């Protein structure tokens, strides 16, 4: 059984169809990239999985349990961690406190949660910034901080929304390393990404969306030679 399973998920906002009949699945410890041109409905689909938008039709299950229609906080408790396009770290807190707040979901005692948080901070390579206010960190650091905060929930699935956008090549490498380490922990990753050179080498599977529909699914090599995908990205000759 797959860890995450989307079955004919559709999301409509009034007359606008953002996602139409999208199905795919994701196994434990897999990295799946969700790509597509602007406005393809990637973020909407993402928000459906994370509980921010209930799907209009279709179902989403995590480890056999239906999570579609659950509120974001219930999805988090069920085992879905997520990051946002803009990192949305808690700016009144230090880096350690940000992760600690995430760790409180599984451990309500603050000193213990702090210990857990420090481990996750070290995991993403930010331990030296523990006492730094999160607002004064760079975009790349804040994105990784948001990843650590989501990991502190001890999720089964981590959703990452454009963690590599706007980063320089060495920052992309650092982020890729973190993603690979997450996979090695047995946590599945679903990554929405525009930076294809970041996601293509590490993904086990790529799902391509265009105008709300899934137009291709397969290994990075299969997908990048698929004429439909090339057409969607580059248009006609």
């Amino acid at each position, binding site marked *: 059984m797959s860890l995450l399973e989307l079955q004919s998920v559709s999301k409509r906002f009034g007359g606008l169809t953002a996602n139409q009949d999208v199905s795919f699945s994701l196994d434990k410890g897999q990295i799946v990239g969700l790509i597509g041109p602007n406005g393809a409905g990637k973020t909407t689909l993402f928000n459906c999985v*994370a509980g*921010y938008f209930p799907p209009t039709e279709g179902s989403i299950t995590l480890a056999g349990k239906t999570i579609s229609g659950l*509120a*974001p*906080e219930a999805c*988090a*408790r069920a085992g879905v*961690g*997520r990051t*946002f396009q803009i990192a*949305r*770290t*808690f*700016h*009144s*807190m230090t880096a350690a*406190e940000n992760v*600690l*707040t*995430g760790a*409180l*979901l599984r451990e*309500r*005692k*603050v000193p213990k*949660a702090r210990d857990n948080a420090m481990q996750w901070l070290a995991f993403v390579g930010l331990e030296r910034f523990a006492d730094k206010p999160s607002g004064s960190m760079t975009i790349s650091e804040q994105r990784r901080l*948001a990843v650590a*905060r*989501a990991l*502190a*929930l001890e999720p089964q699935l981590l959703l990452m929304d454009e963690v590599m956008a706007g980063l320089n090549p060495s920052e992309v490498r650092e982020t890729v390393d973190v993603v690979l380490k997450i996979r090695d922990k047995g946590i599945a990753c679903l990554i929405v990404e525009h930076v294809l050179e970041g996601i293509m080498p590490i993904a086990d599977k790529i799902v391509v969306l265009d105008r709300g529909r899934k137009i291709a699914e397969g290994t990075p090599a299969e997908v990048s030679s698929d004429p439909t995908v090339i057409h969607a990205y580059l248009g006609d000759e």
Partner: protein
Amino acid sequence: MSRLNTSTVLGLLAAAVALVVPFATSNPAHLNMAILALMAAQIGVAWNLVGGYAGQASLGHAAFYGIGAYTSTLLLVKFGVNPWLGMLAGGLVSAVLSGAFGWSCFRLKGHIFTMATIAVATIVEIVFTNWEYAGSAVGLYIPMDKQGLGAMVFADKASYYWLALGLLCITLLATWLVERSFLGYYFRAIKDEPDAARSIGIDIARYKQVALSLSAFFTALGGSLYAQKELYIDPPSVLSTALSIKMALVSILGGVGTLFGPVIGSVVLTTIEELSRAMFGGTGRGTDTIIYAGLIVVIAVFYPTGIIGWYQDRVRRFKARRERAEADAAAPAAARAARPTSSTSTGAAL
């Protein structure tokens, strides 16, 4: 580090001042002013739980204050219930009724939320103004026939001073405990980034309500104390919007979301209020109020993070300057030490 923390020293100093005030002055007017400052500080600290830490700026807190004052007073006047019990009952009634307050207001965000809180509090004020049983617009008197600690009625001001100080300390202690527990982190997360807070499993509707109920409980205790001190309450004195604004104002002036911010704000605000009244009051043209308002505007413009924020900023700058000075002093020494060895170690020292 053996150096004493500046904040600890200031805190101990403030505690010492608070303990000697009743012995230092025999002037009841001065003592009364000190009591008012403590009472304003206490409700400011209570307001700060939801308005500061959780970032839900309510301008309807007078409703909780009034419900506390009316609950203990009605229980005493109509049923002869001891005011200490009445005070506790007022806190609990207020915390429970805050559920309705939150239910109606928390579906709104930001400024609209704040406006809704004003509306709800105004409804409460109108209800009490027209409620015959609760004395309507005439208000309620508390008899002075029983006095002493058990009856919470005193002929002298000093006793009320100790009561107000005690209540302030309890409220500060409760806030301190909340701040250090998971609740404190959850409240701040909701204030900073509500969407991200939900993504890490925080039920924001629920924790906003927890903050509001705690805040309502302690605000109501302040209301009961007011009733016992003044021995008279009516809707304008315990339910007015001006009172709600004052609770928010002392926190904002002192520093929202900080433990001692409202205390500092209250001392500064009460001092400005009384001084401007002493110097410019009685001219019959409201000069004192204009000066009072002007000073608030000045503080708000120049110190938007409040007095605590301004102080923390100064400390940070001072530390940065000292670190730079130390680095400057250390650099030549390091260079001297490195000179006899190879150039790589000079690079490492720098």
